């Protein structure tokens, strides 16, 4: 470390030169917008106004959004959506990853590709297609259910099923991405550990429990954090398919931000919502990382 520090201090201009583009872009496109959003959240005005026209309101926007039942519902909905995705995707990704890691499977590269393909399709296109699949009267999903004598479901047209329909869509689209991360983590585990465990008489289940899962810790932490961040920011399927309906059953924070800023012309309130979402994501991510570090 000392040698590294000495090397850096010996070339201050070179260090600055190499770091400036990266840090500059990061500051310009990440830090400045966050600071600007925080500043706008303390003001009242529309997206079309210049900054000088915005009126200072202090923390009033934060008080207002927590008084709004729509925002509270959106916050609860997005937590439920995120939790449901984590509960489904995390174990599935581990199981599929382990399955694909088996050397006896011949077409595992094809399977990996097939699993990853949906992730490469734009979410808007996926949402439009799933809108047709979920159609209660003519949709293929209900027709398939009919073949096995399961009653047709209302899917996006039901207050109870709309959110779970969005969860299924997301699982289908993103599962492959998380499986690839798990597979990458599995390839890092030396085979010798399993061989030694086999010699010691450990069963397959014991090997997974005492070797695979502990050594997959870092990959799982990454999947957990990224999955939480991605799902808390859900917007596209809600915008394309449900617009937060039926009633407020699929209303989520990002969609509320969008309509508040662009349809209602209240940039301050929308920015306050954005800051709350940022704080939630930041706190959850830090808590998750700490949790995985302690395991």
């Amino acid at each position, binding site marked *: 470390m000392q040698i590294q520090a000495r090397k850096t201090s010996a*070339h201050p*201009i*070179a260090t*600055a*030169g*190499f770091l*400036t*583009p990266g840090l500059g872009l990061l500051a310009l496109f990440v830090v400045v917008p966050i600071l600007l959003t925080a500043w706008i959240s303390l003001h009242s005005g*529309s*997206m*079309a*106004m*210049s900054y000088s*026209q915005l009126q200072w309101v202090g923390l009033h926007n934060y008080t207002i959004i927590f008084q709004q039942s*729509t925002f509270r519902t959106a916050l609860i909905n997005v937590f439920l959506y995120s939790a449901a995705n984590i509960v489904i995707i995390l174990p599935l990704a581990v199981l599929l990853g382990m399955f694909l890691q088996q050397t006896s499977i011949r077409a595992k590269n094809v399977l990996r590709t097939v699993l990853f393909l949906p992730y490469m399709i734009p979410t808007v296109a996926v949402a439009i297609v799933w*809108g047709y699949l979920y*159609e*209660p*009267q*003519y949709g293929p999903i209900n027709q398939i259910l009919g073949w096995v004598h399961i*009653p*047709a479901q*209302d*899917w*996006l*047209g*039901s*207050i109870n099923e709309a959110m779970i329909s969005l969860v299924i869509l997301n699982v289908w689209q993103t599962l492959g991405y998380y499986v690839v991360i798990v597979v990458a983590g599995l390839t890092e585990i030396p085979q010798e550990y399993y061989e030694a465990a086999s010699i010691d008489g450990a069963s397959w289940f014991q090997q997974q429990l005492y070797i695979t899962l502990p050594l997959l810790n870092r990959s799982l932490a990454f999947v957990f954090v990224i999955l939480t961040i991605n799902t808390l920011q859900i917007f596209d399927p809600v*915008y*394309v*398919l*449900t*617009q937060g*309906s*039926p*009633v*407020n059953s699929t209303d989520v924070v990002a969609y509320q931000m*969008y*309509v508040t800023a*662009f*349809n*209602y*012309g209240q940039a301050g309130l929308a920015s306050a919502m954005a800051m709350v979402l940022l704080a939630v994501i930041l706190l959850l991510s830090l808590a998750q990382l700490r949790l995985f570090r302690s395991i």
Partner: protein
Amino acid sequence: MPSQSLARRFLFASISLLFILVLASCGSSSPSSGSANVSITYLTHWSGPQVTQLNQAIATYEKSHPNVTINVHTVPFGNLLTTITTQGNSANGPTIMGIYNLWLPQLVQAGLLAQAPATYTKDIQQAYPASVNSAVQVSGKTYGYPNEVDLYALNYNRALFQAAGIANPPTTWSELVTDAEKLTKRDSSGHITQQGFGIINSWNSGVVHPWLSLEESDGGQLLSSNHQPLLTSKAAMATTNLYYQLIFQNKTTDPAMNQANASTTGPYLDNFANGKTAMIIMANWWESDLQAAMGSKFADVGTAPIPVGPDGTQSHSVSYSWSTVVNTHATQAQQDAAWQFLQWLNGPQSGQNGSSAMGDILMGMGILPSRTTDLQAHKSQLNSPFISTYVAEMPQSIPFPIVLGGDELTTSLQKSIESVMFGQNSPQQAMTQAQSNVGQILSQYYS
């Protein structure tokens, strides 16, 4: 040392590049300055054949005005307001914008729209009916050329009516309820396979406008003259109770069959087009959507006035309108060119047989033009079986209130109505909630 020299050169190059970019971005903010040629942009949510027609009109105009170039920029309806609010604050943004008039007060308050110069204000006031004129005014000032007018009527499937032995469409709520019952079909498990009456959900205007049309046909209104909501009125309660009766008591409406998506299409349209919905209240603009979806079966579609409620005296429909406005942040030359073009586009010399080019474009979509001379020029087309009901109902139509917070109050009311449709609230609870929420929204803007 060579590495330090290289680093200095790299740093110098980076700073120079940044300087050039800043200069370039400053330079691009003054379009067409110092030149007699003017380039303007026309932002619209139209698509397909309508954009082709608009471009043809523009090409004709550009021939007689060689110093003016007009570019058409299209976005989906769902992105129109977003595009206006994000790009309208710049001279490089759209010069002419087609807007839903409900957004007008909000856009005027944000300082985005140019007031029409006196010459054009006079032209607008002379050429359009007073009710249409009022929709493009804020505090007595005119902000644009009105164009389309939309209103609502009962759309019904004649073939399904005939099969159910019903001769005529309902004219009252009680007939609506009875007919809906006769037109509903269920499978052995009681699941609705053909609904008597469709009630749209998941789209704010699609929920609120038909509900309000029924409410107004029962003698109600949305807001008082001093911007107070009237959602706990007898008519509002009766309308919401009617929905409750159709969905839960008579089970003639299935909310799952009536969902709309971001493109304002979806199951509600599919089910009507496929003969799975016998009646629905919809606006005239969906004629072209129905024609495309139904083909020759479009001939089965009949239209009738909104059924009258027990306390109503005559059928009323909500009407709403659109207009074309000019960006106040455009240069003076651009604004002048924009107003001149709009006067021509909406004038009787630009279209065919005395219609304006705008009138021809709107009629191509099955949308009612609002200019008096356009209505005259398209008289024969306006007599078609589908559209004639809408034309006949226009004098009794009631414009949707153009108020600040209009979009927010529409969405808030939508959620309250949907809470009844999906069994979350009773009609009484929903309307009490709507009264409170809409009141809060309006109190931000009106004391």
